[in-house]
């Protein structure tokens, strides 16, 4: 398509655009073209790079550290949420009026019911060869009536 045909094409396709003047409406700052070549030479002499300034290491660090801190905090919170909290054992408190009614037999029965679940390990080390002297010393400390004990054993 030659230039004349293209002008006709433009006239047909875009009549309003075809009729507009092609003058440059942009205002150039005063003295720009006088100054500009010197500015270019100065930039060349400075060895100015045309690329966007590269990030220096400390700028990278200044940006990365807060991001890492946020990520670490998030991870810690996530782990904490996933760690199972200790299960609280629900204990139904008995009112004093009911506690008074519990006799020793009932208490002992409750202890015996749970006795099967108690393993020797739970009791800790039991020295079966405990010296009689230690036993007596213990009973005296507890204030036990030793005469009653002796009377019982002799019977």
């Amino acid at each position, binding site marked *: 398509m030659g230039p004349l045909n293209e002008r006709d094409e433009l006239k047909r396709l*875009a009549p309003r655009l075809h009729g507009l003047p092609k003058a440059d*409406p*942009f205002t150039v700052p005063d003295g720009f073209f006088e100054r500009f070549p010197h500015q270019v030479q100065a930039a060349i002499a400075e060895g100015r790079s045309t690329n966007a300034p590269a990030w220096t290491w400390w700028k990278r660090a200044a940006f990365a550290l807060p991001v890492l801190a946020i990520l670490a905090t998030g991870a810690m919170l996530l782990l904490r949420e996933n760690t199972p909290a200790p299960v609280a054992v629900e204990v139904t408190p008995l009112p004093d009026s009911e506690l008074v009614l519990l006799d020793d037999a009932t208490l002992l029965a409750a202890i015996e019911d749970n006795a099967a679940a108690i393993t020797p390990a739970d009791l800790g080390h039991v020295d079966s060869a405990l010296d009689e002297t230690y036993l007596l010393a213990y009973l005296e400390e507890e204030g036990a009536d030793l005469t009653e004990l002796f009377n019982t054993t002799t019977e």
Partner: protein
Amino acid sequence: MSEELSDEALLAMFADEVRRHYAFNLIVHKHQRRLYSFVRRMVTDPDETQDVLQNTFIKAWKGLPDFRGDSQLYSWLYRIAHNESISHLARMRRGLFTTDERIFERLTGTLDSTEHFNGDAIQQKLQKAVMRLPPKQRAVFTMRYFDAMKYEDMSRVTGTSTGALKSSYHIAVKKIEEWITEE
């Protein structure tokens, strides 16, 4: 004086290390106005135009020693200016909250200022319509419509086939006609 010297003469002078800076100064003088006009139509803002144009010539300085002369010097410079303009516009699009509308407002803000724009209402309307084109299509339209560049030269500048350029220009013309016609 720079207009009297051909590009070949300037390039020969540039090859001489002693006169390299002087030759380059003349090259800038010779081609700055035409390239300024193209870049200004692409980015509109005068300060940004200066930055893009300066980058263009800095790259030209670095690349001239390798310039083989297989194209005209002006086409080669134009190609750099084109790529720098497109890169500049691409950098504008980066950013978390950058929208097409914000970019359009930024590009057309200059057109509302009489300090930087002395065209009438219809010319303002035309320039705003041009700003609505995607950057590469804007470049094609600017080169063809305002600079009357041949498709073969445009192809060397953009690295695009002449067929694709004709198609792109055709579409751009239709779009702009529609936009400047609507009230």
